[in-house]
């Protein structure tokens, strides 16, 4: 999968498109970023410095990379490692152990994983260890080079670091930090987490052994920077197989960014979130519309994509409800208005609905009670209403519920609703229940 392709100057369009798709998809799907993250230069330098110390000079270190989800923590680390590994001695020296809080759910599993990643299964064999510490020590010991003077530096990457803090009395963290404190073996412990309060999670003994280094990725990004980022994410590198196409592409991207409507859309997204991932979703949607017939991203694509991203799920769901269920929802809304969001049960809703029917002369909505119950059940299944946690023994009719949709969503849905009877619309709008 290397991007290094033959430097043929020109290629058929289809081939180019395929390439574009491939490259950009890889970029968006697994954060294979284009060279150099913008805006995080400082953090990048800092981290690289730390890791080099471990890798080259055998110093132990521990650091936390903290930042909101999708802020590019993993990408930062990845790019740093990429650069480091280009140096030969690092490459042959440094060992990496990648752990993930999602996978290594307890320390026993984690230790097995470490053993595996260090390729020491056969060394460990059937040995039994008194304590976790012994085991870890043994592993590190086993890594000593042939001349037994200094052991190879190991880089421990703990993704979802906060989850490790929940393991039983934090043995793993304790030992790792302990090792990183003592000089028995050069290790670097890098934790990635999205929790700012992560230190609070650590026990005292663990915290004390942690060098309180933290790298924060709290992007205080301006809109113009954001735009640059978008362009960077979209544009192709110059080592693209077909240089001419690449130029055209990048040019088109440039135009796109400068488009007014596009900027508005991006502004909205920028206001929602500045992180990479939401951006990637957006761009992914745009990219998916690039075809042989339409080899560039048009403004319209971006608009549609953003519409998809920003669409409100609940309104979408409300749109598909049957009249019965819609009536129930409206009744609940009224109840909410009257009783200031006090929980309600089916009986009350039904009464409310009946009131409405009494006011109406024509009886086209008077459904049999079982039908009403079914409708209510369905709403509950869709979790548009939620039971207030009470005793589960109560019958369905009397279970207290809360409405999970707010009036604006209801109103919006009503506007979109196909063939919505006017009287129901009025009922929904009417202030008095």
């Amino acid at each position, binding site marked *: 999968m290397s991007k290094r392709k033959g430097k043929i100057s020109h290629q058929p369009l*289809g081939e180019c*498109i*395929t390439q574009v*798709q*491939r490259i950009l*998809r890889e970029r968006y*799907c*697994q*954060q294979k970023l284009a060279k150099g993250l913008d805006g995080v230069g400082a953090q990048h330098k800092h981290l690289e410095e730390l890791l080099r110390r471990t890798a080259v000079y055998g110093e132990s270190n521990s650091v936390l990379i903290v930042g909101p*989800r*999708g802020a590019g923590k*993993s990408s930062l680390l990845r790019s740093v490692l990429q650069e480091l590994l280009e140096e030969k001695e690092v490459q042959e020296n440094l060992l990496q152990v990648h752990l*993930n809080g*999602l*996978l290594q*759910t307890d320390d026993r599993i984690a230790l097995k*994983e470490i053993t*595996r990643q260090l390729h020491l299964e056969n060394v460990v064999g059937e040995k039994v260890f008194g304590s976790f510490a012994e085991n870890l020590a043994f592993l590190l010991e086993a890594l000593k080079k042939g001349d037994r003077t200094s052991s190879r530096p190991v880089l421990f990457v703990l993704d979802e670091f906060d*989850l490790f803090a929940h393991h039983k009395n934090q043995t793993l963290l304790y030992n790792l930090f302990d090792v990183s404190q003592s000089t028995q073996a050069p290790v670097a412990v890098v934790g990635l987490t*999205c*929790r700012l309060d992560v230190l609070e999670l650590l026990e005292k003994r663990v915290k004390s052994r942690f060098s309180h280094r933290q790298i924060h990725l709290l992007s205080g990004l301006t809109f113009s920077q954001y735009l640059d980022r978008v362009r960077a994410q979209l544009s192709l590198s110059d080592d693209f197989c077909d240089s001419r196409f690449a130029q055209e592409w990048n040019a088109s991207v440039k135009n796109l960014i400068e488009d007014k409507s596009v900027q508005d859309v991006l502004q909205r997204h920028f206001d929602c979130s500045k992180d990479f*991932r939401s951006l990637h*979703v957006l761009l*992914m*949607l745009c990219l*998916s519309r690039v*075809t*042989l017939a339409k080899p560039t991203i048009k403004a319209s694509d971006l608009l549609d994509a953003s519409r*998809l*991203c920003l*669409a409100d*799920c*609940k309104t*979408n*769901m409300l*749109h*598909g409800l*049957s*009249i019965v269920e819609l009536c129930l929802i409206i009744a609940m809304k009224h109840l909410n208005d009257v009783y200031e969001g006090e929980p309600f*049960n089916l*009986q*009350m809703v039904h*009464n409310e609905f009946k009131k409405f029917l009494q006011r109406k002369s024509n009886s*086209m909505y008077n*459904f*049999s009670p*079982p*039908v009403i119950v079914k*409708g209510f059940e369905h709403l509950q*299944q*869709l*979790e548009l209403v939620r039971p207030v946690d009470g*005793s589960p*023994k*109560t*019958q369905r*009719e*009397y279970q207290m519920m809360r409405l999970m949709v707010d009036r604006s969503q209801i109103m919006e849905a009503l506007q979109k609703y*196909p*063939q919505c009877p006017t009287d129901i619309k009025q009922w929904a709008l009417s202030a008095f229940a």
Partner: protein
Amino acid sequence: MAGLLEHPGYDEERLKRAAEQLPCREVQAGMLLSLMGEPHQYCYPSIFIYGHRASGKSHVINVLMKELELPHATLSCVECVSVALLFEQVLRSFFGCDVASLLPRSPSLTDFVRIYRQQSPARQTRYIVMEKAELLRDADANLLPALLRLQELVEDNVTVILLSEIVWDTFRPNTGCFEPLLLHFPDYSKVELQQILSQDRHPSFSAELYSFYVSVLLGVFYSVCRDLRELRHLAALNFSKFCEPLAEGKVKETDTHKLWKNIEPHLKKAMQTVYLREVSSLQWEQMQQMEEETGALKGLSAHTHVELPFYSKFLLIAAYLASYNPARTDKRFFLKHHGKIKKTNFLKKNEKTTNHLLGPKPFPLDRLLAIFYSVVDGRVAPTASIFSQISSLVTLQLLAQVSHDDQLDSPKYKCAVSLEFICNISRTVNFDIMKYLYDFL
């Protein structure tokens, strides 16, 4: 309309075939396809598809997977009573049974990921399709987040597609997670429904007739029911009725007006039982014959009458009174000559008629018995069978025991039957319950 699907990297023929099987879902299918990209290209790590029941979520996915012969594992989360089952199915359908058998007895996510990584990397995107994804929330906490970023964890070109009727917002764990790419399948419009329903036409009748029938059906039901599955059921239910006059030769297929006149009232009646699914179409016809004589259309919901032994009836009545009347009013109701408790001062206006809104209140056993003895006429010995009847009413779900089973001392119960039910019961033993209900004084 068909053949609208097209995408490089897939066989035209297959695409065409797929498109034919996906009426009125070309847009969504095309969308999906373009997201998937060409087989060897990466697809977004996780896609979350939501939409109402019978809006073709799993249908579209399955058709695409099958027709384009993509490597995929489809599984429903209902079935995965344990994560082990889930892992096992995925591995089996990707790498075959022998790989699946590598899983340890109670596998953890790590084992799964490890085994997966040991396999050969994908030459084209692999898909894991999970129906009823909402159940993943009940599985252990980090299963869902891990699945969402599985692509990154196994470092392979794999995409997890989650299908659910519930919006994504309720899935998000409190520390957040990798956000999937949301995709909404809107419900079918009336026209689309017409088009789809018309496809399964009766072989012995012309397509026009059937599509006319469908249009009539939609005309009646569309306002109350947009569930394709339900509509199809209704169509099957009423079609025989619809073509009765044709069979009798009274009407020609052409004069649709007569046909409409004939079917319309029946559909109107059927409105009352929409969604209830009480009867198979066969029994529906029987019932309609019945209704020719009796004139009343009855479904499951209609036979709510339950034949009970004499004392059970009174026990049930007593339970109902106990759970819907405030205890302080018992004196007034059941004492033969309750001094001077006047209506005025024992009725509190504010709590009037609330009990039937708020539902039954729990009551202790002895209160039940006390009311029972004062309600039932004639002196009844407190025999074992009386007590056993109480417990049996519980197993019949007519009473509900609120206190724990292990609490032998003074258990508490609730009455679980509706007002009309109890009214029927008390009519059979001619006991006027309304006079004893606090809410209806």
